């Protein structure tokens, strides 16, 4: 539950972003990042459906590698 997952933003509509990770798409809220400038193509860390931080592409990839190794994450 505490594990946040990096996703890339595919499109934005209001406070909702369509995000993608390796072919899987999901909506996430950008409500907690309103004070930041978030753009399509950015990577964000998502926890229980809310983006909590903008991260670098490199950081996103290293976390994905980690998640790939986990059997029941």
């Amino acid at each position: 539950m505490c594990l946040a997952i990096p996703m890339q933003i595919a499109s934005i509509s209001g406070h909702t972003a369509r995000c993608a990770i390796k072919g899987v798409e999901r909506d996430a809220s950008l409500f907690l990042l309103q004070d930041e400038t978030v753009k399509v193509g950015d990577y964000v860390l998502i926890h229980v459906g809310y983006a909590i931080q903008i991260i670098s592409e490199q950081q996103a990839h290293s976390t994905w590698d980690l998640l790939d190794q986990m059997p029941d994450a």
Partner: protein
Amino acid sequence: MQTAKQWLDKIWQLPLSAPIRIMNVCGGHERSIAMAGLRDALPDSIDLIPGPGCPVCICPEQDIYQAIQLALHEDVTLVTFGDMLRVPVNVSRQNIRSLEQAKAAGADIRPIASPREAVAIARAAGGKKVVFFVAGFETTCAPVAGMLAEGIPDNLSLLMSGRLTWPAVAMLLDSAQPAFDALIAPGHVATVMGPEQWQFVVDRHGFPAAIAGFTPDSLLQAMYSVLRQHLEHKRFLDNCYTQVVKSGGNALARHLLDDTLKVVDAPWRGIGVIPASGLELQPAYAEHNARLHFPRHEEQARRFAGAMPPGCDCAKVVLGNIKPVQCRLYGEACTPRSPVGPCMVSDEGACRIWWASGIKER
């Protein structure tokens, strides 16, 4: 950036003579440590201790009992994070002991993965009351605060069992004999709340501390940092997750948390009340506070109310006093298939993580 292997080599080169215990307070950290096999890769003198990093494990037994009773006896839909469904309460075996059993008995209970789903379910409920039972640490409560600030439907109320992590660590450090010598602080809690929250570990208690991310290289970097702090008698809060953890954290999220939720003294299952460690709804949200709008279902003199299940050592595991394998029930009566205690139910519970990572021997 150094690789996990390089950090490991650097740790092996340190002149470690006496044993040292390093505690983490995040189920995500514990899972990375267990899955990457870091315990076996590190020198024997380093003892990695899983600490209070599982919000499901310490969620008050009375609150879960209340959630079960609401779902069974009130005309509501109860939504909660999936991990909560199988956590048992202390009632005799003839009675309904978990939300999962209540659901099987016909109660309208739905597991969700996001507060957004709670809002969507309430909107689609045609006015039927929906209760969102929330167990979680800061990383989960911030999205709940966002949900409240954005506005929720009238028929949605919250049974809040939010908890803060640092007061539990403060309690351990204030105790006569903390079960650890150095701390790895939780990376995603610090992402939201800011690294500054953990400064007290160094300033007030003189313990080495580092904030880590979730990859093995970040965890090993943090371990190397606290080991050096320990050996060189220098203390500072080392942020080893600077890519994500920024000074001040997510300022908006903190602001929304303050606006919507208030800090209260709160019970931790099997442990007792920890001062200023709970998050409840602010009075402005009283209309959405399920504690105020439904009768409290508690039988007087229910045996073991508030405690861990009889025979389960989760409280000791959570406090870092014993390892999961030291529980008599681990792998015997208690497995993920038939869990006795919450630490074997939750993905963030140390017992479940150890079992899933293949530690079968007691």
